[in-house]
């Protein structure tokens, strides 16, 4: 993935890149994104698109992507550094970032021409794409999905339904995993297609989580015609593309979330000693909860760093990455469960804790999406511990 521009030391020197990002993030140009939280997901996505633009214009939001895809070179470690520095500066990485670090690499690998054409809009914040994998009858059992893509001349005609697609309400394209084989073909008969949301026949409807926030959406495809040139990888290669993508979700996305969770641990710890009643008197019981959350974060980072480095070195990540995914889910829930238990009434009541409550509900989904915790345990049982099959 590395596409070295030998004249730019920020490509090869991650410390220099980190220093450059840190200096830029200290400037007032990014002040409006510091500590800002918006209740409404579409509003927040439009707001953070501005952050993407500012980082892009400064050049610093273009590392980690090949020059041929609108980037300035480097690898996935550049994104990890960027997320750490954003969090350190009190800025939550954008929703766009979380989509970008999972979708951009498979696009660049399996459809370099599409990457050249479309990734620049993603990097600059002008557009962002949903990940259209899950269906109502195909969640953990992804290979059972039914959304069809039929070849007709130079087009694919897509009909079906996707659900739980993050940020799809505001996305301009969908990374769609659809069935091009027979209904029984399972993972062999799948293909990945980049579909524009503004095409005739595409309908997107937001899905509100229990907190009331509509970060997710369902997408309906009613005989949508997409040029065959929008195929990512070959027809029938969709599962391979999806599995390649998942490596980045396990690594780069996990790193992004760890950065966000550290910010939240810092915020929680600050609240406990800001003198605002009622809060528990800090003592050994509180310290054990905070220490336990901290250990979850350290364990996640210690585990992810290897996965990030292996991807950066062009290696493949195996079934043991399911441990990363389980550690991430556990960490997400440990942070927000700690907030809930330590803040007590301050968590349950009052306007000041809206974000904690919303994120607590979101954290419940982290052991469900992207392959549920049960699926991950099954993968470890089968492929790592090699236990007898169920």
């Amino acid at each position: 993935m590395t596409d070295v521009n030998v004249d730019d030391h920020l490509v090869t020197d991650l410390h220099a890149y980190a220093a450059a990002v840190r200096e830029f993030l200290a400037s007032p140009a990014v002040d409006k994104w510091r500590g800002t939280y918006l209740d409404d997901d579409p509003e927040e996505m439009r707001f953070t698109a501005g952050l993407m633009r500012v980082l892009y214009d400064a050049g610093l939001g273009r590392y980690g992507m090949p020059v041929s895809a609108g980037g300035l070179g480097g690898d996935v470690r550049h994104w990890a550094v960027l997320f750490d520095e954003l969090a350190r500066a009190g800025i939550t990485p954008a929703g766009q970032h979380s989509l970008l670090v999972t979708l951009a690499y498979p696009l660049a690998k399996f459809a370099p021409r599409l990457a050249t054409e479309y990734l620049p809009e993603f990097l600059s914040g002008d557009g962002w794409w949903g990940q259209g994998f899950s269906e109502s009858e195909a969640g953990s059992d992804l290979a059972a999905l039914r959304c069809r893509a039929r070849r007709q001349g130079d087009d694919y005609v897509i009909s079906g339904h996707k659900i739980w697609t993050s940020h799809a309400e505001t996305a301009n394209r969908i990374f769609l995993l659809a069935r091009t084989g027979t209904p029984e073909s399972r993972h062999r008969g799948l293909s990945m297609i980049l579909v524009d949301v503004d095409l005739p026949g595409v309908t997107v409807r937001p899905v509100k989580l229990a907190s009331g926030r509509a970060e997710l959406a369902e997408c309906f495809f009613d005989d949508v015609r997409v040029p065959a040139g929008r195929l990512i990888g070959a027809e029938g290669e969709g599962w391979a593309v999806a599995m390649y993508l998942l490596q980045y979700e396990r690594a780069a996305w996990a790193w992004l979330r760890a950065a966000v969770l550290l910010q939240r641990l810092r915020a929680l710890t600050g609240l406990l000693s800001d003198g605002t009643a009622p809060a528990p008197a800090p003592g050994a019981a509180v310290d054990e909860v905070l220490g336990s959350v901290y250990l979850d974060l350290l364990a996640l980072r210690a585990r992810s760093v290897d996965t990030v480095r292996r991807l950066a070195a062009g290696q493949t990540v195996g079934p043991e990455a399911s441990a990363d995914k389980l550690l991430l889910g556990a960490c997400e829930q440990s942070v927000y469960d700690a907030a809930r238990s330590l803040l007590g009434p301050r968590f349950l009541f009052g306007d000041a804790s809206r974000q904690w409550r919303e994120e607590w509900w979101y954290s419940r989904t982290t052991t469900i999406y992207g392959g549920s915790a049960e699926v991950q345990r099954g993968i470890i049982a089968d492929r790592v511990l090699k236990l007898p099959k169920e």
Partner: protein
Amino acid sequence: VIVDAEEIDLLTGSLRSVFAEAGADVPRRLREFGWDDVAAADPGAATTLLFTEKGRALSSAALLDDAVLPLLRAGLPVSLLGGTDLVCYPYPGSGAGAAAGPSSTPLAVTGLLLRQPGPDERLVIPVADSGGVSLAVAPASAFTVTPVPSLDHEAGWYAVAGPTPATRYDGDAWADVVAAAHRALAAEITGAAERALELAVEHTSSRRQFNAPIAAFQAVRHRLADGYVAIAAARALLAASFGDVSGSATVAAAAAKARAGRAHQTVSATAVQVCGAMGATLEHPLHRYVNRGAVLDGLLGSSAELTAELGSMIRATVTSGGEIPLLVEVC
């Protein structure tokens, strides 16, 4: 990393033979093998391999003393550098970070030894003074030394009690000693946990009930998978504690030991459950790994104690506007 994957396999094999054959002679066999050279080349890999295998082998050799004595001796006068010494560790649960505390009058040693001292051997005793930790050195014969009754009958540890010697030496290295011991103990605890998980995998894969191996039942599979994840997390954190953690080495080492202790608890609970009644017998080896990891967890701060210490550190750091140590960076 200086030692590569292939070397790690070879060294692991050699260590397994040493622990299988040498019994109480392990330190001598390691010297003959040239383990000091391995440790000099890659201290992190050497400590991890040696203590992981020690934990897996349930060895009661006092290798921790050998690992930390060079650090302690840096503070001792040359005249004291001959002879063999044992480290007097703080007695678990005594609440002090050192084996003798300033609160008792006269100062009394309440410590723990990893083996029985010989008649001419000396103890190196960390003493908590108002100004920090200093070291005392005295013949073991000056103290009452008795076997420690514990959960683990095989640990071979001894309790030490007696007055604190008046002469003290520079104990500035004590924090580094604790960090080094935390890393070694983390590896040993993880090794014991690994073996416990392997025993559970073996038992549940061969034992059949309801016409199927019990490891084919999801309730069992998922617990075993969680055990694997707990160990993987502990190992990753241990590896990180040997990395570039400048300024945070003691935090990283404490975190590694805390997480190893927690992994051992998770795996123990699972292994004892899924091995059924057989696993709770003296005949089955499982209890030995369960007990060993538990008493090792109690040494130099348990998982729960270290976790609370880390939480306290987080609170102090955030309150003072400092940065929470991340320990792991991609660059």
